[in-house]
């Protein structure tokens, strides 16, 4: 399938693209060429500039300088409308769908035929039938979008682009919300599109995906596109090294765990989400002192609600949560007071107050502890003291506790949350997506810190959609699917075994099959 570079045409060429936002240089002299009929991967860390580049391609931003050529002709892309007209379609990481619209309404939005809707609906139905058959993209057109599983919603996004006759399809981190088998199905669809002569640009930070699914790969680092090569000529290690600029340890060294007594015990937990849908179905689990229990699973299978209920942020329908044998009330203040700390999945939404100085975030939620005294006054010197300690112990930069938290990088922000939750000596730590949006250097630090905590005989429950992270850190793995724990595995289990569990194929089924 390897097409010769000379003979295949370049359907898309970006030359000398520069883009800055004030003092921040997002893209620096980027040159990218994409062939027709290929799957081209773009890999890089957070902040490397991939999203900005794609935003320029999709008309969200204008490049400060540089040219874009489509089929050899120079084009301007002043807005999304122009991008669509040039045959560029984008499937975003966070879907741009209207939740309470039907699938059909979402697809025709913006591509309607005339001012009245009846003709648009008719035309769309015919065309979508054809597309569904051709690319294996079956979806119920009358279904309400928010009721559909995430994998199907993604298909709606792809159909949207194809309905508008996209020839260049950009996918931004598409597999974060898919099981391994759904991801495979997606790649089959992408290969079909490629074989029909369309071009696919796949943006991802997952090295394995690049190796499995792409023909060509470009690496971006700190705003520059530093290398492009056929995927076959690269390895995961060489890619990682290019991404970071130095040799990277993809695994953390750790000694085997020596778990003690059961510290944290959950029985029969049932939780609904804000729409009243049951998301956690009768879950029971336990965590011992000195052990890390990892919960693996594709996003959306109830892990978020489980973590929220365990942290006290969501009241369960039924079930008990015990710490050292005593039941603890479903209230974040009381959970913390009892000794359960929580590093939330979404630090921006609930972990930090971005407009506050670092000094205040460093003690958010702990400011009424005995350490801070019983007076109603809040002593700035005390806040400063804790903040300074965390800054030096966790290597937070810039080391300025008066600076607004929003000005720190994702990794540093996560370190402050981690420091805050760990340093008041909790018995039990709940942690969700600890390295989301965090650069590789900070990832190593955070992973090491969690292992250290475990070695101090604390209990940790880790929830992550990154299977590699789960396998690297956990002593025991529980897999969640559709709100229930469907199986337990050791970190040495094969990815195939874990992938099947994540897709809901339980161990009995696996045994049978």
């Amino acid at each position, binding site marked *: 399938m390897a097409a010769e570079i000379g003979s295949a045409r370049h359907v898309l060429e970006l030359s000398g693209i520069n883009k800055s936002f004030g003092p921040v240089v997002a893209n620096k002299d980027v040159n990218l060429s994409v062939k027709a009929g290929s799957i081209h991967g773009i890999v890089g860390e957070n902040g490397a500039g991939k999203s900005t580049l794609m935003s320029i391609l999709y008309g969200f931003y204008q490049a400060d300088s540089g040219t874009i050529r489509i089929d050899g002709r120079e084009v301007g892309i002043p807005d999304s409308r122009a991008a669509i007209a040039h045959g560029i379609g984008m499937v975003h990481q966070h879907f741009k769908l209207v939740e309470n619209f039907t699938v059909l309404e979402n697809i025709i939005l913006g591509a309607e035929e005339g001012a009245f809707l009846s003709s648009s609906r008719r035309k769309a139905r015919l065309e979508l039938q054809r597309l569904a058959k051709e690319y294996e993209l079956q979806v119920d057109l009358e279904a309400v979008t928010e009721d559909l599983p995430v994998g199907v919603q993604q298909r709606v996004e792809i159909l949207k682009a194809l309905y508008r006759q996209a020839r260049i399809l950009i996918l931004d981190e598409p597999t974060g919300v898919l099981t391994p088998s759904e991801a495979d199905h997606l790649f089959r669809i992408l290969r079909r599109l490629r074989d029909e002569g369309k071009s696919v640009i796949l943006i991802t930070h997952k090295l394995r995906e690049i190796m499995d699914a792409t023909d060509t790969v470009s690496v971006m680092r700190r705003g520059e596109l530093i290398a492009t090569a056929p995927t076959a000529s690269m390895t995961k290690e060489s890619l990682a090294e290019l991404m970071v600029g130095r040799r990277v340890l993809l695994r953390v060294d750790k000694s085997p765990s020596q778990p003690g007594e059961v510290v944290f015990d959950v029985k029969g937990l049932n939780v609904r989400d804000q729409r009243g849908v049951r998301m956690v179905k009768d879950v029971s689990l336990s965590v011992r002192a000195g052990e890390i229990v990892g919960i693996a699973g594709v996003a959306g299978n109830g892990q978020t609600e489980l973590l929220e209920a365990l942290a006290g942020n969501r009241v369960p329908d039924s079930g008990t949560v015990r710490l050292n044998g005593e039941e603890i009330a479903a209230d*974040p203040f009381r959970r913390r007071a009892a000794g359960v700390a929580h590093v*939330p999945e979404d630090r921006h939404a609930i*972990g930090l*107050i971005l407009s*506050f100085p670092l000094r205040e975030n460093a003690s958010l939620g702990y400011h009424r502890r005995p350490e801070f005294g019983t007076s109603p006054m809040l002593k700035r010197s005390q806040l400063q003291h804790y903040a300074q300690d965390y800054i030096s112990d966790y290597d937070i930069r810039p080391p300025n506790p008066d600076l607004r938290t929003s000005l720190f990088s994702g990794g540093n922000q996560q370190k402050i949350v981690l420091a805050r939750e760990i340093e008041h000596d909790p018995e039990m730590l709940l942690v969700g997506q600890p390295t989301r949006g965090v650069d590789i250097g900070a990832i190593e630090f955070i992973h090491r810190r969690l292992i250290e905590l475990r070695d101090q005989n604390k209990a940790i429950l880790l929830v992550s959609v990154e299977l590699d992270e789960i396998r690297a850190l956990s002593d025991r793995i529980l897999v969640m699917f559709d709100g229930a724990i469907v199986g337990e595995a050791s970190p040495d289990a094969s990815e195939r075994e874990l992938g099947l569990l994540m897709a809901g194929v339980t161990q009995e089924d696996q045994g049978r099959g």
Partner: protein
Amino acid sequence: MASFLNIRQIVDFAILPLMNVAVALLISGLVVLFVGQNPLEAVGYLVSGALGSGEGIGFTLYFATSFMFTGLAVAVASHAGLFTIGAEGQAYLGGLGIALVCLALDKVVPWYVTLVPAAMAGMLFGAAWAFIPAYLQARRGSHLVITTIMFNFIASSVMIYVLVNLIKEPGSMAPQTRLFDAGGLVPKLGEILPVDIGTAPLNISLFIAIAAAVFVWVLIWKTKLGFEIRATGANPAAARNAGIGYVKITIVCMLISGALAGLAGVNILMGDLGKLQLDFPAGIGLVGVAVALMGRGHPVGIAVASVLFGVLYQGGAEISFWMPNITRELIMLIQGLVILFAGALSLMFRSSVYSLVDLFRFSKREA
């Protein structure tokens, strides 16, 4: 780094409020022109009436005192992310509490004994009037703006009934109580300080207002409760996760807000009118909204904004005296414009002022 912070504060608390008022005055001047009057003449009366004599200044500061109470009331709530229009009704009900205490004690004890229970009654009644909207917002998500406006209307009905049927001065047709005796009247500033303020009712409530401002400053920025209030206003989900109860903060904040609004009655009833009469707040709650926005929720800014509005009120009275075709509603228009500029269009003003400041600093550096 330190000097830049100071510039920011100067811009925020002095330059921007003045700019807001200036643009509002400019537009109002155009309206005055539009109705066939002379805006420059109006400005002349404004300035002379408000600042041209001891008496004028006295009136200006008297009005400013009331605005400080309601401005602080709105500001405290705003730090928790709550936008309240209810200071008007809360001040009104607070006045009822004050009047009841004064009517009970004024013939029996001197003013400095009456003052404390009266102020406390004012705060209690004001807080009570804020409770239901607060509870509904906290527990049912009912929009505070609408519920507090409704409660202002309902307060009107309640007070009409009370004043006409329950505590009216016997033998009189007017909907008001009897006059308070000496025990229910606080001394004017002219009586205890060597200043000549003529007939202006500027009284010791001014000091209570200043104390309230200091209290709010300490509360919001120096206490744990204040930290929780600010956190709730900045990011309610993060505050909740940190164990800060949204219901508790909402209700506590609004009770404090209602109490502050209720204190305004001390200035007006015990300091000026000497009786409880229909519709005595006459809009101070609404001015409080403008003052809080202009002062960006900070007691210093609120003090500055209160004085500015005091100037507008006293100057406005002077204008409508000499130019009868321009009514007090001019001030309401200016209020609305200030709210628009300080509240909704604040970004527009701030960014242009900051760019000017940056430009200035750069050129200085190069010179």
